[in-house]
């Protein structure tokens, strides 16, 4: 009665077609971009890739899981500050004290929580493990209490705002609003050397591709189906024998780790991290790219983030004030008219899913 073999074939093609798509993206980012872009533009692309890594995680949490993570700046900050502390200490040399601390008090010892970040291994472990720990505790508390929807969004944004305030208010410990900058080397590699900068770019691009592979597998897995089911009918999922809190927790933790890694790579590429990059506005910009690209699609978040990052640099160069209006308008137009982002345009044009949208 139904056209099962054909449908199955297309699902198959779509799934593996996505893999080919990731391959093409990998080729463009890892091989083509370094060959055609100059150092400055490649570095910028690296910055956008960092945001894209965060965006891939947001796509998982928000697009598939329905959790509007308005405070990913928190996890971005964890990775970024872990890396920045390590690079600051590396720059200060063995037993050295960061320059900004000496400015405030030449005799101050290194604060205790800075000490382990002298170790590169500890730093790398912290970039991955701290967000897992923080997101697990937060997520457990929040999701078990069945906090969701707008409340979750506001709560997560409140955390990002609070963290930005906190860092801003602890200038002697964290560099405050000035942030941490002036890193000279990256795990022993001179950051001034273009070859090393290129290497960092390549690492970032590879990490982005890996993150996309992770969500590709998650999206086609049973977990992916269950996550969407939880997004669409959370209470119903309970009666399938799952605790929706656990399902959401997994997605939330994975996206937190991605945000942290994105933050960690951001630091050597951009050369500075400050509360400006993690507060309310920054966290919202992270969301913006995902909304633009298409929150629930595989490629939308990453491409949207790269596009937004590019637009942000070029537009703000050309219209210093005007670009904010363009951004504002984008928010309104996309949510109003294109809630599934740019990724939905091809489907809309082909009209294949018009009927589904009408019922949604």
């Amino acid at each position: 009665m139904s056209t099962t073999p054909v449908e199955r074939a297309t699902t198959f093609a779509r799934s593996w077609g996505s893999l080919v798509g990731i391959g093409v993206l990998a080729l463009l980012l890892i091989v083509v971009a370094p060959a055609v872009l100059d150092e400055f533009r490649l570095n910028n692309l690296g910055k956008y890739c960092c945001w894209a890594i965060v965006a891939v995680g947001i796509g998982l949490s928000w697009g598939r899981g329905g959790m509007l993570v308005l405070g990913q700046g928190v996890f971005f900050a964890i990775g970024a500050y872990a890396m920045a502390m390590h690079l600051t200490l590396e720059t200060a040399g063995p037993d050295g004290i960061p320059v900004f601390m000496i400015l405030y008090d030449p005799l101050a010892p290194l604060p205790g929580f800075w000490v382990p970040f002298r170790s590169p291994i500890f730093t790398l472990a912290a970039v991955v493990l701290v967000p897992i720990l923080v997101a697990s505790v937060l997520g457990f508390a929040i999701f078990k209490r069945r906090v969701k929807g707008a409340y979750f969004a506001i709560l997560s944004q409140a955390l990002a705002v609070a963290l930005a305030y906190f860092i801003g208010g602890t200038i002697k410990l964290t560099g405050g609003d000035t942030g941490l900058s002036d890193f000279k080397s990256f795990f022993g590699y001179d950051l001034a050397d273009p070859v090393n900068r290129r290497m960092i770019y390549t690492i970032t691009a590879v990490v982005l591709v890996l993150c996309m592979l992770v969500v590709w597998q998650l999206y086609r897995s049973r977990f992916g189906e269950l996550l969407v089911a939880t997004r669409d009918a959370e209470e119903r999922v309970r009666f399938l024998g799952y605790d929706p809190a656990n399902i959401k927790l997994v997605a939330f933790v994975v996206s937190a780790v991605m945000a942290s890694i994105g933050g960690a790579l951001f630091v050597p590429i951009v050369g500075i991290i400050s509360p400006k990059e993690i507060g309310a506005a920054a966290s919202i910009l992270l969301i913006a790219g995902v909304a633009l690209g298409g929150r629930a699609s595989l490629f939308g978040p990453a491409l949207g983030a790269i596009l937004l990052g590019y637009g942000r640099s070029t537009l703000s160069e050309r219209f210093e004030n005007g670009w904010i209006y363009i951004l504002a308008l984008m928010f309104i137009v996309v949510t109003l008219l294109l809630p599934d982002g740019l990724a939905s345009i091809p489907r809309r044009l082909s009209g294949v899913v018009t009927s589904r949208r009408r019922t949604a």
Partner: protein
Amino acid sequence: MESLIAPLLNGTADGALLLIAALGLALTFGQMGVINMAHGEFLLAGAVSAYWTQGVVSNTNISILLALPVAFVFAGLLGLVLEITVIQWMYDRPLDTLLATVGVSLGLQQLFLQHYPSGVPVKKPSLLDGQLDVFGYAWPLRQIFTICLALVCLAGLAALLRYTTFGRRIRATVQNRPLAETLGIATRSVDRLTFFIGSGLAGLGGVAASLIGGTNSQLGTRYIILAFLVVVAGGLGQLRGTVIAAWAVGVSTAYFADWTTGSLASVITFGLVVVFLQVRPQGLFTIRTRGLA
């Protein structure tokens, strides 16, 4: 004595300001379920109104009184325009209203940055220049003005909701829209009027804010998240909790600021509210329905 009294009084004033912002949200968010992130910028609109009226009426005492209705109407109209152009299409998508209004908020902030003369404060009315001596602490009259304004807003809103047909219509529309429509209630007008009043309240808060602190583009950002937390922590659907939560947040932040620093105090308050919501999430979820659709 003074060191204990001062944070209490300053904090009460700050809580009052927060309350005015939160009362508007209690209407648009608590009653209508709309998450308007541009609500904070409606505070800015109120501050701008105060600046405008001073340009027209030079007597600062009269101009501040004139500024109140001007701010209410100006911010209310902004809210109305927002409701008609953006929000009305998204009543079934609350998270999307959040995103769209984030855009509006960014745009309004930028408008303000470019057109409001920076560093020009609203002149304080001479009548409010003095201080009231409270146990040896000179309490600025401007803070007392803010508290009075908050109380007037509170009483007005409570009376509106409880005693007028409009209040009943709001509640009817919120509880069962289709039924309200069949009863002949023009729910669209109710939506618009609710939004107008909720936004207008933010305008009033903006006038008070312009007297207490400086006026800058970050005014809204500073209050919006805290105001949302206050509404949620207070519990939806009633005003009493909002009042208590706003006051508690204002006063505790003031004390923390006394003991630590301003930014750390905000962090502690944020943390406490978040923890409080963990312990008492009432109003955070409602699952008392039959179908799961």
